[in-house]
């Protein structure tokens, strides 16, 4: 039993990294614009689906297919920003309208994927096809190592981007005060598009990493988006590192829920954690970002 729990916690950490990356995607857009993008899950789904299509149907090598998918999905993020978010933004729409529009966009993308790729679940081969390592009696498979290593790498790169590049600093300036940033000559609206591209790329990357261990299908977006949102809430909305921590906590909690309650109610468990946090501590574990 103890072995099973430890093993579950381990796999929960892996899935939790993915939730964390998606949660960071929420934070990037939220910090740049104050918008909560409910179409975040579509990026995760597209990441897996595009990689699968490029890999399995057009025979591209997996790394190339993944890179192509990330670029294409980042582009899709910009398209979403141009077609849906920008017009509403310019008209000064309320937050509810923005949420509703991005949720509608999520459904449109989902249905387009269904039409284009069918309703069959797809999966990718694991990145390194070797038997799992045994560490302290636990089986550690290579995909888990890939997920954790890539997630940490992404976080380090993001931290470097936000702290030492000019563009990253400009985006942080936008998150502190958009008007003041505009007065400093920062192109605020271009930063919004950039935030969507970055966030979409993060989502796609998460989708590619997780697909070999689970599967991807047209309808995986909403559950992933909600898990990412829960991660962001638990970590205190707008804090990327908090979101990553929140993601890992959520992943572990969900894994334990599967052990003790059965897999049927794992989504109910995650949603209940969300409600609990919203009711008891809506500012997250670490408090609000500002």
């Amino acid at each position, binding site marked *: 039993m103890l072995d099973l729990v430890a093993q579950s916690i381990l796999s929960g950490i892996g899935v939790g990294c993915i939730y964390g990356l998606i949660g960071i995607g929420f934070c990037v857009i939220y910090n740049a614009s104050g918008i909560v993008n409910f179409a975040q899950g579509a990026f995760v789904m597209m990441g897996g689906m595009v990689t699968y299509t490029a890999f399995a149907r057009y025979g591209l090598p997996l790394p190339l297919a993944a890179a192509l998918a990330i670029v294409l999905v980042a582009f899709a993020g910009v398209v979403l920003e141009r077609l849906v978010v920008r017009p509403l933004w310019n008209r000064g729409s309320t937050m509810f*309208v923005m949420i*509703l*529009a991005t*949720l*509608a966009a999520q459904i449109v993308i989902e249905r*387009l994927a269904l039409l284009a790729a069918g309703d069959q679940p797809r999966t990718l081969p694991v990145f390194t096809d070797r038997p799992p390592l045994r560490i302290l009696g636990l089986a550690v498979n290579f995909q888990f190592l890939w997920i954790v290593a890539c997630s940490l790498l992404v976080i380090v790169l993001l931290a470097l981007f936000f702290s030492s590049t000019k563009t990253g600093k400009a985006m942080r300036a936008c998150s502190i005060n958009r008007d003041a940033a505009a007065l400093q000559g920062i192109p605020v609206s271009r930063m919004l598009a950039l935030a969507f591209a970055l966030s979409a790329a993060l989502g796609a990357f998460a989708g590619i990493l997780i697909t070999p261990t689970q599967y991807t299908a047209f309808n995986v977006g*909403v559950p992933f988006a*909600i898990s990412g949102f829960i991660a962001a809430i638990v970590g205190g909305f707008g804090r990327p590192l908090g979101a990553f921590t929140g993601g890992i906590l959520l992943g572990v909690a969900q894994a334990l829920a599967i052990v003790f309650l059965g897999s049927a*109610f794992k989504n109910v468990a995650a*949603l209940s954690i969300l409600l609990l946090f919203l009711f008891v501590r809506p500012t997250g574990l670490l408090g609000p970002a500002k």
Partner: protein
Amino acid sequence: MMNSLTSIWAEARSNPLLLVLWLAVAALAAYVFVNGGYLMAVLQFACIYVVFVAGLNLFMGFTGQVSFGHNAFAAISGYTSAVLTATYGWDPVPAAVLGIGGALACALIVGYPVLRLRGHYLAMATLAIGLIAYEVAVQWDSVTQGYMGISGIAPLGVGRWTITSDRGILIFLIVVALLSLLMVRGIRRSRLGRSFVAVAGSEDAARALGIDVARTKLLAFLISAGYAAVAGSLFVHAVGFVSPEVFGLHMVVLAFTMLYVGGIGTIVGPVFGAVIVALLPETFRGFKEYQDLAYGAALVLILIYTPRGLVSLPDLWRRRKAAQKTDVQQTSARQGGAA
């Protein structure tokens, strides 16, 4: 009640588009009643959604809140009705009453903590509630029979008196839809309705006027949940079948599209929204993927271009014309100055 009727009439007279729409809906209902056929199901479906959307409108349009989770209350009452009549052989009326009561009790329990939230927290919390209801409907298959759904649900009726003919069901649903609309009208003009609108305008200002904001929001939530529950029970009894998909995210998107097509915050908007969206040719065909695609895309376009809905179109035109006129005047004035 009479008062509400006359005021709807007065509003229709002052807005030609509204009058045309009412006439079109009435003509459609008469045509369908005489000829029956495929449109019968469409119109019944629209009537049920009028009830659902009217309730949502009360919470979102009047009170300025947001809920992506009202499908949960429709699901609770719908499944209670379905299980009690199909599995345990209850009469529809007590089953529906118990279902609606159960939905209201749930709304009261979740409403209290949920309504303290604002903005995207409120949106996400309600979305989570709706998704939990859907997941439970899928997973609790010893009661709900999972994706298979429940069939053989008793038709509407009391004891031996049941409504089984398509025409009878249509008449009944039209009456219920109109009653629910008149009730919304009555609520809107009451002290309670005015306090809803005050809360939407500014919670601080409403509080300064002595309105108990938390209580007002909770009441709006409960009333709209009640409408959703009525719609849920009506649906399962009228159609005779229920599955989780009936009350899934699809229901939310559909209801929002109807709400925004008709005009959020107007009293009669839900009628036109529901009828128009239900009439979209894809609605009742087998291709559900195209439906959601069309609704989603339509919703985005409406949110961008006519955020106040169809009923507001004459207003919009009038304003655009007025704007053009002032433009022309300004240009000519400028030219005059140059000369």
